[in-house]
């Protein structure tokens, strides 16, 4: 945890951002989804994006993943223009039920990412076991996604993303469909996974508390077309704690500020 924070500090001042949106505009089917979005994400940073539904949060994430190309402007990764998805960027989709291969077991789903990376088949089983253990699914290697709960399926998708050994993890409302207890557990697990790997994270959510709890920085988007409406630095101590962090005066202040912003956009 401390090392990640140190790294963040070391990098933030000097180097170019790992992911940079430069005046990005995206039009789909004649509609402007995102307009003139400029945004830099430093290596090791945990950035949360919130906003009313239809504000382009998910679209922004897809631009960062290279799944969409901007109509104008540029998205850079390590100062290189993003023309297509990259191995070092992994994306966790909200609808884990659709993103997992139903005909492959948990191990098979993780294996897909290793196969795509060209890992020899002899080395895969050990790595798969290690990844499943990392996300808290040891002993479930032989289960099919349909035999797993929502929380387990999302863990599995995260394991598959970790198999890419990503520099950047993009998460699209990953816990939106889960119950509150599972969600809190996974929030803490993602925080510790990210702290251990030092990965950069862009985390899209509609849950304002979740955004503040997880993020180093929270960005609120305005809808129609999507653009930045508010930007908040979250100076809460790490490691974060479900009880004390959420009672912290700074947490409450940010929460109020963010709620007011969202309320204003909805009017």
């Amino acid at each position, binding site marked *: 945890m401390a090392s990640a924070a140190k790294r963040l500090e070391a990098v933030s001042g000097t180097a170019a951002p790992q992911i940079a949106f430069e005046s990005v505009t995206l039009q789909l089917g004649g509609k402007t989804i995102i307009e003139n979005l400029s945004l830099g994400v430093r290596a090791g940073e945990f950035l949360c994006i919130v906003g009313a539904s239809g504000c382009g949060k998910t679209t922004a994430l897809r631009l960062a*993943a290279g*799944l969409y190309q901007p109509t104008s402007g540029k998205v850079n990764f390590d100062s290189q223009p993003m023309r*297509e*998805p*990259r*191995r070092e*960027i*992994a*994306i966790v*989709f909200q*609808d884990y*039920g*659709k*993103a997992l*291969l*139903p*005909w492959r077991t948990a191990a098979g789903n993780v294996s*897909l*990412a290793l*196969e*795509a990376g060209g890992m020899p088949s002899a080395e895969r089983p050990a790595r798969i076991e290690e990844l499943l253990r990392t996300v808290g699914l040891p002993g479930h290697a032989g289960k099919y996604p*349909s035999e797993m709960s929502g929380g387990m399926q999302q863990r599995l998708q995260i394991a598959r993303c970790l198999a*890419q050994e990503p520099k950047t993890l993009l998460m699209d409302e990953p816990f939106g469909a889960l119950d509150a207890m599972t969600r809190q557990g996974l929030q803490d697990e993602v925080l510790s996974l990210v702290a251990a790997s030092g990965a950069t994270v862009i985390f899209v959510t509609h849950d304002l508390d979740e955004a503040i709890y997880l993020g180093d920085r929270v960005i609120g988007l305005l809808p129609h077309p999507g653009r930045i409406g508010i930007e908040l630095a979250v100076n809460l101590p790490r490691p974060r704690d479900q009880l004390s962090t959420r009672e912290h005066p700074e947490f409450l202040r940010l929460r109020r500020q963010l709620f007011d912003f969202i309320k204003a956009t909805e009017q």
Partner: protein
Amino acid sequence: MTANSAKALVLPLGILVAFEVWARATHLQSDSLAPPSEIVMALIGAFADLSILTATRDTLFSAFAGLAIGTVIGLALGIAFGISDTLNRLMEVTVEAIRPIPSIALLPIALIALGFGYRMEIAIVAFACVWPVLILSRAAVRSIEPRLMEVARALRLPPAQRVWKIIIPAALPRIFVAFRLSAGIALIVAVTVEIAINPLGLGAGIMLAQQALRPDLMLAYLVWIGIIGYALNVLLVIAQNRLFGRAALTGGGQ
């Protein structure tokens, strides 16, 4: 056997018995009809002298060889057209122009090009089998969950792996339905080619019995072809349920 399926058998058995009684009562003399008992005897005779087994082997060999070739071609084209919209639009007119040609209408050309025998029959069966597989596998590929294709892109799976590891498994339940349809078509077309011209297999057996004025044997062949067609479908339905369960019905592969 459940009470319901027993009930379902009552009517056809009743008709057979009535037909038998009527044929015996009127001392039926016909070139096209024979009482059920004589048909059964003819079928037993045909098994005893192995003629119907040889014919079955010939017909099934042609049908399955044609089915295999047609399925491979149809699958390759269906997947390619399903993936590439451009390719699909380029080929659409060609496909729609060739597809409605009744496969049996190709018989004269196939006969000149390939002569009598297995090759000609296999070619015609293959032609007939291509279309259902092509059309259905194209639709299956197009209806694959878009999220899976995004996962494939995000993982940077190479195109060949994308087809082999994502597209084919995701579309497989529906592709199997197409295969089952084509299997029925293969048997129909094989027998038709044999009846029309090819001196092989069960179709030729029917024609021979007809020309020998043996309605009992002719009908015995007919019954046997029905049994084979029924058995083939039952086997494939069992295989489908074993392999894919309900996924084949929804087509979602889940």
